[in-house]
């Protein structure tokens, strides 16, 4: 199923950012997921989760927030 989903995990503790990203990616199957994070730990974990599931990741820093776009 194709689609776009947004996910805001700013301020959440480990492992919630990666867990929520994983569940969202598995729910989407294919498409685009945009994840907002506010720490480099969350950024690393979200990107690694995406890559493990075969999604392409692209990060864009916007002030204190990083917007990670995952596509498959």
């Amino acid at each position, binding site marked *: 199923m194709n689609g776009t989903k947004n996910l805001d995990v*700013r301020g*959440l503790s480990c*492992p919630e950012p990666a*867990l929520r990203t994983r569940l969202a990616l598995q729910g989407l199957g294919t498409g685009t997921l945009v994840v907002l994070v506010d720490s*480099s730990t969350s950024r690393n974990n979200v990107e*690694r*989760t995406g890559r493990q599931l075969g999604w392409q990741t692209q990060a864009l820093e916007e002030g204190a927030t990083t917007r990670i776009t995952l596509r498959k």
Partner: protein
Amino acid sequence: MSLSRFLSSRWGPIVTGAAVGVLAPLLVQQGNPGNMGICVACFNRDIAGALGFHRAAAVQYIRPEILAFVFGALAAALAFGEFRPRGGSSPLIRFVLGMFAAIGALVFLGCPWRAVLRLAGGDGNAIPGIVGLVAGIGLGIVFLKRGFSLGRSRPAAPAVPWVMPVFAAVLLALLLGAPLLGRTPEGNPTGPVFFSEKGPGSQHAPWLLSLAAGLVVGFLAQRSRFCTVGAFRDVLLLRDAHLLNGVVALLVAAFATNLALGQFHAGFEGNPVAHTGTSWNFAGMVLAGLAFTLAGGCPGRQVFLCGEGDGDAGVFVVGMIAGAGVAHLCSLASSPSGPGPYGPWAVGIGLVVLCLFGATMRESTTN
């Protein structure tokens, strides 16, 4: 590859774990208690004793390793642009989690780091502890899958991230200065810091060596996100072995270093600062593992987060120090002869309280 990118790569946790695995046995050789080169729970317990928060005369010392963890992580966070003031994610719940984490760990007699270090020193009693740790993490994962959350932290005032580094600096000053500001009823100088004259608290490496080792570990661990609880959690929950590689490196490096130093003694009886009560070695670490999982990371990770501006982690660490005080004031902590008289009760109560947290805390109820 820059140091920053290297430490955030798959090699980061491995290098950090290997560093801990080499440095901890070296600290034992230099005077730290057996199989306790570094133990975040035991060392917080010693700090609690040194500050007079409990009266167990054998476990009182301001451990420089813990202070240096904060300083090393602070240096790394500043160097890599990761110093970020934040807080406000259920701080009181985190305090209680810290208390029960310390109590559970002191029923086992060690934090997750020491569980691995005990195994690497040949102490078979570490096995039920590690199995219990994984079971506690598994229980925490059940709650995480059901939506458990302590809620979101928010950007904090500029003073917040400096509280724990300044606290650590004050403790270092108290260690080095050892002022005698109090008076006994007889008028003799005493306190506010107390140092063991015998027992584990009296066993310590030279403070400068302890400080240097802690600085190295704190610096590496901040950037690599080394976490002994996240290691098992991420494998079970996310099928991700990134952090587990660090724990394996710790175990292998500590085993090799212990062998090289003649500190490996396989067996169940007569191990340093350990007891043979399998059930309570297991159950204590179930409680600790659950507490660490609900709080988001192992005690070492919580101390490192203190250095990068996380006020909530600071509350957890203060909770651990308070819990360690309670554990010894109320005879909850174990000794080499076995569990304390009320330790099993505390484990049971802790599991009930933490399961209530796990079942009831959702993001919608925490914001």
